[in-house]
């Protein structure tokens, strides 16, 4: 265990993160990058960007509360130190996504009201399930909920959003790429550390599996909510794309992710693809830990 945890030291974190892929960035992207005019000047696309970013802020606030809360429940010094780096990673994510809301025109004085009005109630419920375990200082359940379920969810969502924004909005894509690198490290810690702890406490498995089922349900409900609400923005994006292609004669673009071309998918198909990807990843990761994936109810 000690050898594996030494890979998650503060020294490694300093070298790979602040002195590595974040070097030269401001709020996660190159200082010269800005949000594209097509978003800032179009009320439908701007509102959709604000709504989507609010969900990221809510998810990252939950991750910040969970990772900091787990430090005092960690059974060894090395895990405490890793969770300290994760705490700061999550705080950075809260900061950069909050900054994106400001970049999109949200006033600082309106921030909390905007978050309250756009936050998905299902995402808030998802956070509630996780933070209940953290409050009870249940380290194993907390790390599975945080580093496998929440981080696994964030990882897939960020990757999909990265694919969509890579060409259209390099500023946001670069912001996402740093968070993806962080989430990969967090998931790795969860898988490595929890495997050994679950062997010591196998009686905890049923409660953790129940938690995963409940959290997965809220994830699916969040996705359904998000994709239903962005229909108008989707149509507006299609309209602008069609007009652009008429003017330039360019061929329809291709946005590849998980073997599909997102540019050709309807919102309901994208929702299905994202949900399947997230749940498939859970199944694989939980299986590696010796946990049995529980299929959630359909929202």
């Amino acid at each position, binding site marked *: 265990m000690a050898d594996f945890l030494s890979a998650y030291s503060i020294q490694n974190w300093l070298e790979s993160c602040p002195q590595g892929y974040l070097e030269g960035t401001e709020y996660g992207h190159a200082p010269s990058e800005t949000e594209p005019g097509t978003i800032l000047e179009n009320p439908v696309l701007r509102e959709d960007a604000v709504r989507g970013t609010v969900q990221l802020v809510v998810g990252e606030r939950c991750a910040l509360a969970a990772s*900091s*809360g787990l430090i005092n429940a960690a059974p060894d010094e090395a895990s405490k130190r890793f969770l300290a780096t994760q705490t700061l990673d999550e705080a950075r994510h809260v900061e950069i996504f909050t900054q994106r809301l400001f970049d999109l025109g949200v006033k600082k004085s309106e921030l909390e009201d905007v978050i309250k009005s756009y936050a998905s109630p299902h995402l808030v419920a998802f956070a509630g399930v996780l933070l209940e375990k953290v409050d009870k200082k249940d380290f194993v359940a907390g790390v599975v909920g945080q580093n496998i379920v929440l981080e696994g969810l964030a990882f897939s969502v960020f990757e999909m959003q990265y694919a969509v924004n890579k060409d259209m909005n390099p500023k946001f894509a670069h912001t996402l790429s740093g968070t993806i690198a962080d989430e990969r490290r967090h998931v790795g810690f969860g898988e490595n550390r929890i495997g050994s702890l679950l062997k010591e406490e196998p009686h905890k498995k049923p409660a953790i599996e129940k938690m995963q089922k409940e959290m997965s349900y809220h994830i699916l409900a969040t996705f359904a909510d998000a994709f239903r609400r962005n229909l108008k923005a989707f149509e507006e994006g299609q309209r602008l794309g069609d007009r652009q292609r008429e003017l330039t004669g360019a061929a329809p673009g291709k946005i590849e992710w998980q073997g599909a071309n997102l540019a050709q998918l309807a919102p309901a198909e994208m929702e299905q693809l994202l949900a399947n990807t997230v749940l498939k990843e859970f199944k694989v990761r939980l299986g590696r830990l010796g946990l049995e994936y529980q299929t959630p109810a359909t929202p």
Partner: protein
Amino acid sequence: MSREVHALAPDEFLEEVHSFEFWFHSVEGYLADTEFGHRPGTPEAEIPPDRRERLITALCNYCIGETAALEGASGLIGFAPNRQTKIFLATQVVDEARHLEVLMHRMTELGAKDPEAEIKRRATRTLPLFRRRLLELVASKDWEAAIFAQNVILEAMEFAAFQAHARNADPITREVLEGVIKDERRHMGFGENELGRRLAATPHVRARLLQVKRELDPLVLETFEEMLAELAIPRSERPELGRNYLATVERLGFTA
């Protein structure tokens, strides 16, 4: 970060100095090119065996203080009153964890094979009592009292102790402690600013904090005595350490 922070309006100043970005630019200046808190080329001095043992004991107790600070700062995030404060505390959490890591690493450089076991074996009497009381304040979610104990009293205690030790330390330990001191200065600044504004708005809080100070001061001063004796710091310098600690706390108007 190109903005001159002292030219900012008060709200913007707080937003800036509590941010990850500010932390990032602050630490990269003094942590770049270091490994476990010191430059890789700094030579290891000849340290006589008895002095080496005393140094390991001191480092063990610093680790107890840093673990308390790590657990305290992380616990504070859960009930911090706003986003900026949560983000600042997250930077403090990683600072405290780094201190723990570099101090434990220094112990292994000095020959300690199992630092965690040494910490348990060499703990002074008073520091674990301080840790327990701090974590009780954090668990009670009393924001002012917990910030006071953590970012004023504990940080001031560490700041004073590390400064005194750094003056008499071997080159590697000195570099490690100097990096830690730079972080502690930022943490104390946060505590003073946060409590200063709150005390101005709600003066009745002062009485409660004075009670916390009266309770913790004897533990701090006794810890100093135990640590300084261990480090063989000259008796003439010991009162200065207590005075430095008290002066830091007094800047907030806590003189009783």
